[in-house]
């Protein structure tokens, strides 16, 4: 079975890739979106419920991947559904992945423009980010995984830095009352972060590049747990510092960083935090972009994935600018349609593939790579 690329990554590199797939934008957007509906109970919907959901996604995606060791998504969906429907699944995922890259790039651009450089056109940030990611993708998964290992530590440093230094501003009375409006608002607040937790479905695209495919499930669970803990802390701190007003900020965590002030000496650290964060988002975009390129190369039956990198980059860049008029529309889109769309490609399609594979008793060769 041809894999297009010979790169191989280890179990721990795989786990950190999964963390980076979700974390960089989730930390920025989720607190406000969750607190808007769940109020003081937001940490339950954004932290606890999303972790349970992430476990389900990891189970479905990695069980599917384990059934077909060493095979890519397009190969085994052709085996499960037949040749043409398999290619259709591939085409659907090219669309999904390219569109998600465009949205993540747009989120990044909006974050930079609204928080730091109001005068600069968003095109500049989007173009630089895509160009950087394209160069990473052309270098292959091993380079991305190693770079990611380094960047994740920077992101954790930035988060711990923010969370500890704003601790003096936090008032944990803001977390009461818990279960304010009953159980329904908690479920309502869970729908938006669900799309982010579900991003772990990329396991079934990245799995063939793992040294030992049996490590995928365990790495996925570890990543899900780690993300759950970080998101809970993130939401709790945002609530404790701002109270329910956190829902009015687009990026509460960035506003948190501007609150840091130690003895009139350590101030305006948000620019420093930003530098670390840009690295994290670049990695996130690179991984998603890589997945899009790999799926495209397999769908079109290519020997080499490099020729499709730049054309897909052009599409991502154009869409990143044209799909939304402004940031309000972007945030609204997550509420209006993204919930149903993300549920479809993150859960329903993989679960259906798994179900049909079980019913038709299809599985890959048991030798593994």
């Amino acid at each position, binding site marked *: 079975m041809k894999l297009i690329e010979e790169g191989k990554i280890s179990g721990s590199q795989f786990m950190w890739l999964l963390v980076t797939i979700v974390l960089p934008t989730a930390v920025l957007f989720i607190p406000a979106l969750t607190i808007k509906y769940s109020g003081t109970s937001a940490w339950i919907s954004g932290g606890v419920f999303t972790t349970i959901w992430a476990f389900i996604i990891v189970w479905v995606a990695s069980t599917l991947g384990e059934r077909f060791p060493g095979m890519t998504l397009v190969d085994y969906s052709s085996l499960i559904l037949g040749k043409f429907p398999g290619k259709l699944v591939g085409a659907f995922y090219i669309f999904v992945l390219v569109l998600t890259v465009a949205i993540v790039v747009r989120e990044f651009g909006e974050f930079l423009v609204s928080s730091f450089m109001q005068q600069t056109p968003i095109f500049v940030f989007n173009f630089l980010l895509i160009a950087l990611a394209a160069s990473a993708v052309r270098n292959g998964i091993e380079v991305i995984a190693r770079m990611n290992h380094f960047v994740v530590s920077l992101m954790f440093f930035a988060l711990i830095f923010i969370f500890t230094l704003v601790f003096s501003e936090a008032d944990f009375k803001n977390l009461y009352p818990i279960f304010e409006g009953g159980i329904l608002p908690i479920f309502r607040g869970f729908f938006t972060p669900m799309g982010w937790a579900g991003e772990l479905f990329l396991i079934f695209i990245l799995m063939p590049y793992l040294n030992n495919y049996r490590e995928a499930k365990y790495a996925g669970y570890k990543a899900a747990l780690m993300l759950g803990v970080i998101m809970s802390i993130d939401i709790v701190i945002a609530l404790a510092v701002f109270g329910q007003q956190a829902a009015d900020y687009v990026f509460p965590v960035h506003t948190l960083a501007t609150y840091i002030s130690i003895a009139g000496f350590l101030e305006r650290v948000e620019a420093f935090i930003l530098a670390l964060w840009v690295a994290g988002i670049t990695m996130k975009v690179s991984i998603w972009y890589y997945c899009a390129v790999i799926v495209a190369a397999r769908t079109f039956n290519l020997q*080499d994935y490099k020729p499709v990198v730049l054309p*897909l980059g*052009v599409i991502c860049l154009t869409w990143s600018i044209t799909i939304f008029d402004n940031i309000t529309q972007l945030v609204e889109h997550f509420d*209006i349609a993204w919930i149903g*769309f993300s549920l479809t490609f993150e859960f329903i399609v993989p679960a259906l593939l798994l179900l049909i594979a079980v019913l038709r008793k299809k599985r890959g060769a048991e030798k593994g790579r």
Partner: protein
Amino acid sequence: MYIIGLVIAFCGIILFEAPKLIKEKMWGELMAFSGLLLFGMVISSAAVLNIDVPNPTALIEMIFAPPTKLLTSFFE
């Protein structure tokens, strides 16, 4: 005015990828490259020239907004 920059960018991409593919007779790769790049050219030129083309997020909102609304309405 921007269209000139766009043309230069596309010439750059083609000169960067295509000669190698033609020399090594990788026709399938060349087809995929040209197809995707053509699609990219169409949507990016349309964006620069302010022509309306169907927007993927509008499509998603058309299909997925009703079921999403139904799902969330149970919890409000």
